[in-house]
């Protein structure tokens, strides 16, 4: 490894470059050999079922947890040795709101500004309040804010010190669609300005807004790439069935060999599986007059459920 600038690693091509991260809690392996590389300026989505280790991985990246194995760099700084330097250039938004509920919005921001030793503190706090539309609520206690406003406050606080990397852990959970869209507009603006963003989410539409995504299950990375790559890489084929009485066919299809998923979408039924011939045979076996069958692109959700299933088959038993 080349000689590193202790504070920046300004020329490292990857904002995050870690490999083989392992974390165990009381003997249980929660993150198992996790590796990713995130390019600068990229928005990287982090997906996976509850308990798959997203939060734990993010915490290892910003020095809040010490990995049991594995190594790597964040912004060119060693995640084990330089966590103090990493902390000054990373904005971490926790999954659970973690600002001080008995401080007002302005007081919270002011605290953050002081901790990071920002030179023109008052101006920066003022700007942050304006940019996020929090200015006329500045004196409101953080604990009295609704979920959406709390999330705005948390984001404002995270980017106050101009971090180079944002780690956002389910930043939009429980936030209404309009606020979510505004949030993502903001994220894209920040990324366009050169910020790298790693964001965990359970929402498919948010995953589709990311440049790259990784899917975790049982602490292992099951898939990685752009949304299209992940869908293509899954090897899943999906048929959309429509026509009279198609709802009743769900039960009949569910047990057929080769059929992994049967999901109703309004008046349509999506039937998916990895073996194209077997799925086709199962669909053809239906005896429904007026049935229309069309091969469609599987949705990201189909792919994730498929990945979760195969993860269950692989690991849960072990």
């Amino acid at each position: 490894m080349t000689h590193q600038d202790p504070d920046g690693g300004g020329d490292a091509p990857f904002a995050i470059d870690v490999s083989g991260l392992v974390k165990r809690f009381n003997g249980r392996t929660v993150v198992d050999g996790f590796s990713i590389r995130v390019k600068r300026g990229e928005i990287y989505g982090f997906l996976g079922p509850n308990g798959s280790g997203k939060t734990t991985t993010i915490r290892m990246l910003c020095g809040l947890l010490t990995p049991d194995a594995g190594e790597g760099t964040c912004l060119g700084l060693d995640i084990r040795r330089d966590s103090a330097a990493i902390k000054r250039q990373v904005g971490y938004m926790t999954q659970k709101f973690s600002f001080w509920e008995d401080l007002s919005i302005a007081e919270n921001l002011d605290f953050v500004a002081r901790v990071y030793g920002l030179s023109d503190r008052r101006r920066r706090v003022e700007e942050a309040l304006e940019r996020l539309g929090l200015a006329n609520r500045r004196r409101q206690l953080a604990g009295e804010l609704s979920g959406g406003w709390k999330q705005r406050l948390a984001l404002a606080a995270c980017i106050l010190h101009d971090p180079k990397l944002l780690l956002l852990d389910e930043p939009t959970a429980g936030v209404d669609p309009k606020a979510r869209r505004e949030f993502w507009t903001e994220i894209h603006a920040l990324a366009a300005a050169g910020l790298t963003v790693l964001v965990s989410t359970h929402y498919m539409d948010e995953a589709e807004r990311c440049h790259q995504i990784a899917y975790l299950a049982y602490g292992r990375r099951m898939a990685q790439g752009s949304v299209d790559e992940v869908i293509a890489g899954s090897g899943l084929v999906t048929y959309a069935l429509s026509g009279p009485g198609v709802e009743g066919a769900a039960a009949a299809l569910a047990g057929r060999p080769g059929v992994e998923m049967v999901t109703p979408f309004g008046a349509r039924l999506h039937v998916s599986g990895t073996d194209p011939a077997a799925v086709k045979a199962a669909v053809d076996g239906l005896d429904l007059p007026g049935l229309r069958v069309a091969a469609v692109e599987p949705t990201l959700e189909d792919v994730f459920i498929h990945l979760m299933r195969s993860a269950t088959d692989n690991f849960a038993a072990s």
Partner: protein
Amino acid sequence: MKGGAIMSTRFSFARFLAVLVKEFIQMRRDRLTFAMMVGIPIMQLVLFGYAINSDPKRLPTAVLSADGGSPFARSLVAAMVNSGYFDVRAEVRDSHHLDEMLAEGEVQFAVTIPAGFARALQRGERPVLLVEADATDPAATSNALSAMTVLARQALNPDLTGPLAPLRAGPDPVDLRLQRRYNPEGLTQYNVVPGLMGTILTMTMVMMTALAVTRERERGTMENLLSMPVRPFEVMLGKIVPFILVGYVQVVIIVLAARFLFGVPIVGSLALLSVVMVLFIAANLAVGFTFSTVAKNQLQALQMSFFFFLPSMLLSGFMFPFRGMPGWAQTLGEVLPLTHFLRIVRGILLKGSGPVEIVGEVVALLLFLSVVTVIALKRYRQTLD
């Protein structure tokens, strides 16, 4: 930006100030805690103040009169009863029995009138009159004992007639010996105030910091704090300093009440006391901070605080006289900051001690503070592991 990594390992006044400002705001908003911090000293003072003012009467007394039915002995006993302080419950025959009654707490006072009392008195030989008091509760006995000194003279004067009349004018006709048993230090009611100051500070200071840090963990704000570049010592200092001020407010309340409500004399220098006070308060806050690094939740933090508070109460010389305790208890007591603080406060307030007299105790406090601070900083985890 060379040297950035080095910067963060050094103490930063700006970051300390950040924590300090935040803690002050939070303290101001936490009405209940604030009320408790001012309320506890007032409540304790009122409770103990009752004890300070108490003037219990008709205390059980046993008399051993080895002088038979001499009129002098009888006058003396009658006068004691008349004073209202003594209630003679028993007249015993032998001193062993008398000791037993005192030891078992059956009586508060044991009066011994020696053989040949009347004869010695008549000859002007100032016979010994021994009054032993169970002084474990000094507030209960001290008024009665001071009454006794006046009483002995007044009771005997009417009997000193004729050839004995000259004895009236001379020194006391009897050699009154008051013995405070079980309390060799002669803990007086005034000792309650310094003791109270120490115990109130121990209780509130340890508890408040232990809770303040544990609360961050319980509310999830710790994760946020840890993800920022703030150093353990900055957090510790920022959390401790506001409480030092609270401690001073408590001390002012106690000193004012002691002086003006209960008339406790203040002999020494309050300025010196204020300087030393900061050490004691900081020592307790450091203990609280250490607890908070171990406690998983606020309940545990409270339990640990009481775990520290109890021995402090019992072994510091507040509850029981220090020199009356067994060796192991004294050794344990020497470790506790309250022990040294009590000596300092008693010395300054009651005996007028100066810096020279208390330097040993101050060094002990400093040592305790340094050791606990090191432990706290070592234990303070900068990760969530």
